[in-house]
């Protein structure tokens, strides 16, 4: 940017009377400055932003009442119009003049109609340039890309004048003569003469594209702009990694990949991230002459994505995104996560509200749990209740017998919610080992845990739990229980004990105690249902005796039990 201007673009205008009052231009520039700041600070729906834009449009109206176009000369600290300083700002940090000047602009011409479609685009460019790092595109480059209709500009050439001048050969200042006839004669001596033009070569139609060829070009161009370029470049890098065994080349690629991953993450290109992770693993499998150090170095790249810090940042970004990525993209990303990511995935699953991200994480969690049981078992054993509960739930969904011991241990913790999750998971698994762990639940302090445990033990015919159940039924603990819990216990008892329980149940249903007193109606109804579970002729006989019982709850239970539990 060292190009020297021999003349300021408006030097010749200085000293001339402006065609209209500079105050109009000054007012317009002040409004422009406010709009630039508002664009930087507020969203388009913010009233402050909208007021600033309205004010600027109003100033445009005033301006176009006087002229068709407005040309501003730009210096480091001033904007001039017709040689008159219309904006001066010595401080560079907030100066519009400096912002324009520093990128090489020396003159801007606004034309009527600029404010209709192009104002927003220019404000966007100015904002982008304000925030741009030194190596990012400058304003002149960006203005070219925008191809404005109602804005013209002059700028200093990037390459200073005089650099790379093209000179003609020195020999052409003097007259020379070539031997035309001689050369012609020499050519004629050889036959066939090379270079002789054959007119039959000039079938011009051969050299113009036909419709099929034009269609090929159009399709190829369309494909060019639909191509996933980052992914394409990644495929090149992994090809190189596999084919080039040179230490320095592989080291360079391994150094580049994390930067690319970061770039893709920042850009929200999750498919590219997924591809990078997946192909890192493939490249490790396929690369020629790959030593352990190179393999470890490459595998570190995908593994970093699964670490709690990195994945947490990523999920936070996605959760905060105004426009969330589509489900397919998220699934593609989460699909490549390894077992180490499961803890973070489960933690975020718990905290996220329902939505595409949570649904995607749910799917990822299920997949990770299915393929990483050891990690799942580890997570079940973590002191973190949220992780333990979520991990238990996954183990239940997967009916993973390997998780039963860890779930059984959870039944010993103080937190009732954790015990319930463990019981529910064990109930889902329902393997012999899981049912054995679940016996503990029969005497759990928490009603829910007890009910879950008792129901599944009964349903699965886990006779090892019978003594516990019988003790509960025959003891006094059941008296304080509600109907649901009592029913669960009695039904499980009936299912496990069979005919051996009939006498006790018959006594509970039909018998009378001291002073002819019967059991309470709820207990009798539960006994009826238990007899129904047994279903043998003696059990049905016991039920028939109570078919006309005066208590409606008992009568209903009896009828239901006789029908085999159908209401």
């Amino acid at each position: 940017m060292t190009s020297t201007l021999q003349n300021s673009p408006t030097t010749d205008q200085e000293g001339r009377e402006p065609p209209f009052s500079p105050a109009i231009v000054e007012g317009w520039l002040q409004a422009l400055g406010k709009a630039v700041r508002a664009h930087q600070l507020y969203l388009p729906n913010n009233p402050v932003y909208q007021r600033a834009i309205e004010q600027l449009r109003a100033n445009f109206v005033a301006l176009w009442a006087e002229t068709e176009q407005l040309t501003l000369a730009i210096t480091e600290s001033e904007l001039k119009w017709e040689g008159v300083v219309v904006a001066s700002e010595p401080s560079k940090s907030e100066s519009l003049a400096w912002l324009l000047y520093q990128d090489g602009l020396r003159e801007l011409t606004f034309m009527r109609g600029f404010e209709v479609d192009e104002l927003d685009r220019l404000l966007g460019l100015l904002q982008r340039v304000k925030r741009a790092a030194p190596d990012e595109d400058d304003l002149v480059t960006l203005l070219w890309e925008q191809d404005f209709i109602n804005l013209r500009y002059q700028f200093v050439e990037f390459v200073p004048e005089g650099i790379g001048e093209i000179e003609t050969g020195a020999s052409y200042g003097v007259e020379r003569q070539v031997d035309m006839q001689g050369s012609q004669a020499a050519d004629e001596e050889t036959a066939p003469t090379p270079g002789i033009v054959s007119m039959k070569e000039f079938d011009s139609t051969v050299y113009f594209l036909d419709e099929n060829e034009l269609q090929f070009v159009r399709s190829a161009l369309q494909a060019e702009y639909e191509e996933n370029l980052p992914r394409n470049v990644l495929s090149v890098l992994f090809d190189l990694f596999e084919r080039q065994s040179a230490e320095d080349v592989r080291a360079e690629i391994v150094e580049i990949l994390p930067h690319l991953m970061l770039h893709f993450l920042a850009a929200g290109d999750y498919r590219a991230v997924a591809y990078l992770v997946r192909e890192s693993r493939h490249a490790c499998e396929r690369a020629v002459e790959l030593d352990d150090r190179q393999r470890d170095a490459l595998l570190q790249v995908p593994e970093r994505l699964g670490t709690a810090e990195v994945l947490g940042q990523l999920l936070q970004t996605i959760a905060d995104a105004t426009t969330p990525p589509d489900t397919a993209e998220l699934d593609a990303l989460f699909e490549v996560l390894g077992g180490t990511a499961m803890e973070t995935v489960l933690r975020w699953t718990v905290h996220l509200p329902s939505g595409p991200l949570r649904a995607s994480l749910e799917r990822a969690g299920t997949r990770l749990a299915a393929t990483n049981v050891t990690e799942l078992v580890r997570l079940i054993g973590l002191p973190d209740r949220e992780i333990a509960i979520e991990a238990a739930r996954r183990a239940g969904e997967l009916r993973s017998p390997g998780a039963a011991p860890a779930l059984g241990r959870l039944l010993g913790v103080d937190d009732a919610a954790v015990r319930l999750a463990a019981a529910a998971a064990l109930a889902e698994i329902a393997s012999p080992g899981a049912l054995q762990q679940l016996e503990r639940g029969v005497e759990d302090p928490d009603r829910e845990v007890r009910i879950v445990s008792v129901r599944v033990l009964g349903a699965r015919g886990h006779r090892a739990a019978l003594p516990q159940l019988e003790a509960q039924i025959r003891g006094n603990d059941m008296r304080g229980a509600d109907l649901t819990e009592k029913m669960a216990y009695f039904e499980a008892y009936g299912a496990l004990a069979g005919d051996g329980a009939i006498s006790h149940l018959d006594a509970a249903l039909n018998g009378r105690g001291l002073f002819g007193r019967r059991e309470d109606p709820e207990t009798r109804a539960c006994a009826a249902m238990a007899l129904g579970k047994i279903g043998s002729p003696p059990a049905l006989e016991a039920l028939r005796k109570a078919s006309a019982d005066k208590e409606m709850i008992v009568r209903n239970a009896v009828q239901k039990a006789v029908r085999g539990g159908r209401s």
Partner: protein
Amino acid sequence: MTQATARPRMQAAPGVAERGGDAFVRQRGRDFLSALYSALRALKLYPPENTVVQKSLFDLQQIGEQFQKREHELEVRASREFIFLNSTRLRLDLENYASFSRILGIFREAGIGLFRLTGEATTRDWTVFLSHLQSAPGAAADDQSAPLMARLAGAGVTCFFVGPPAEVEDDREQSKEAAKRVYAQSVSATKDVISSVRMGQSPNLKKIKRVVQGIVDQILNEETSLLGLTTLRDYDEYTFVHSVNVCIFSVALGRKLGFNRRQLYDLGVAALMHDIGKSRIPLEVLTKPSSLNEEEWLIIQKHPWMGVLTLLGMRGHSDIPYRAMIVAYEHHMKPDLTGYPKPVRPRTMSIFSRIVAVSDGFDAATSRRAYQQDPYSPADALAEMSNNPRRGMDPVIVKAFVSMVGHFPVGTLVILDTFELALVHAANPQPEAISRPTVRIISDSTGNLLFPGHLVELTQRDASGEYTRTIIKLADPNRYGIRVGDYFV
């Protein structure tokens, strides 16, 4: 003939370039030409008082007035197959080719090269002007501008200036200086980038983008001058000059294939950087004067993928030049993915890479390099690219390339049937005249070299309808001690 030259919109100070606003001229210029075409058609079909005629004249007058008010001038200039509005060349496309073609025909038949509004034109002025324009005797070989001006004056119409057909020479000289500046800046910026990489520094891609924008503007406006400069073969700065040449050929080819401005820019950036990987090749290999041995050849073959790594090394840039990386990687591949490097994962060679491969192949074959002291002539290179399937260039792209540069590419030395020596200056855009380019006569029939010589169209005919000059033979510039590039500078 200063009146015939388009005036710049605004005089920029030395070292200052002007951009922007062309989009308006292009957009409204098409509207104006469309209105002009409609008015001409209406006048031809109906009497002037007809409402269709009146309406079309009113539209024309209004659009012209608006344009003039905004741009402070309205000049329509026909030059070869192009129409310029003020100094902007209007783009021909499927929507406007009929009006372009008709207006160019009318200019030719009327024997004029331009008309300019010198004041406000009423519908009557337009009626008179267009009627006189269309009543020309037809196929006027000579300048008819003065008689037409006289007829207009006789009818009381003084708001039009009519100029003679533009001299080819005049036309091209206008953009030659701009092309030279763009070319020199491009070589300088490319040298900066490649040298920076070679020294381990982070190069400045901004310069590359800026110069490519200049190349795209120049190609869109008048590509002949820039294409002419590709004949410069600076032996010492081959890598830089070659990169710029490939960029110019690629952008010009992209334009020929109908790419838009943004696509040309993307293509240009990729083309300019296609050999960036050579900055990692040892200079002793790159500049070895003799044939390369197998080991050295293997080193050279690394430059495509080294280009990818080099471009990826330019970290910190807001937008990673992915497209340039892909072109750098693929430009020595063939569409069937043979060539080098050999890809492992499935891929389809990008059309940008195919274009750059053709441009690269042509420029490399026709340049003198350390290990290629006897390059192909441009015509032989074209023949090789077209006819030798082992070169593996995309046949559609090669076909378009030949169509762009003509059978005799710019810079080809030819002998005419007049025994004059001539350098091909520009391809003929007319399909039926592909063998009749514009040439610069650089020696008379007795062998006296002329510098800078003069341009002639090989489509010129004499009174009997015979072509005045025809190419009969290609010639080797070295044989005559001719430095082709000098004639383009």
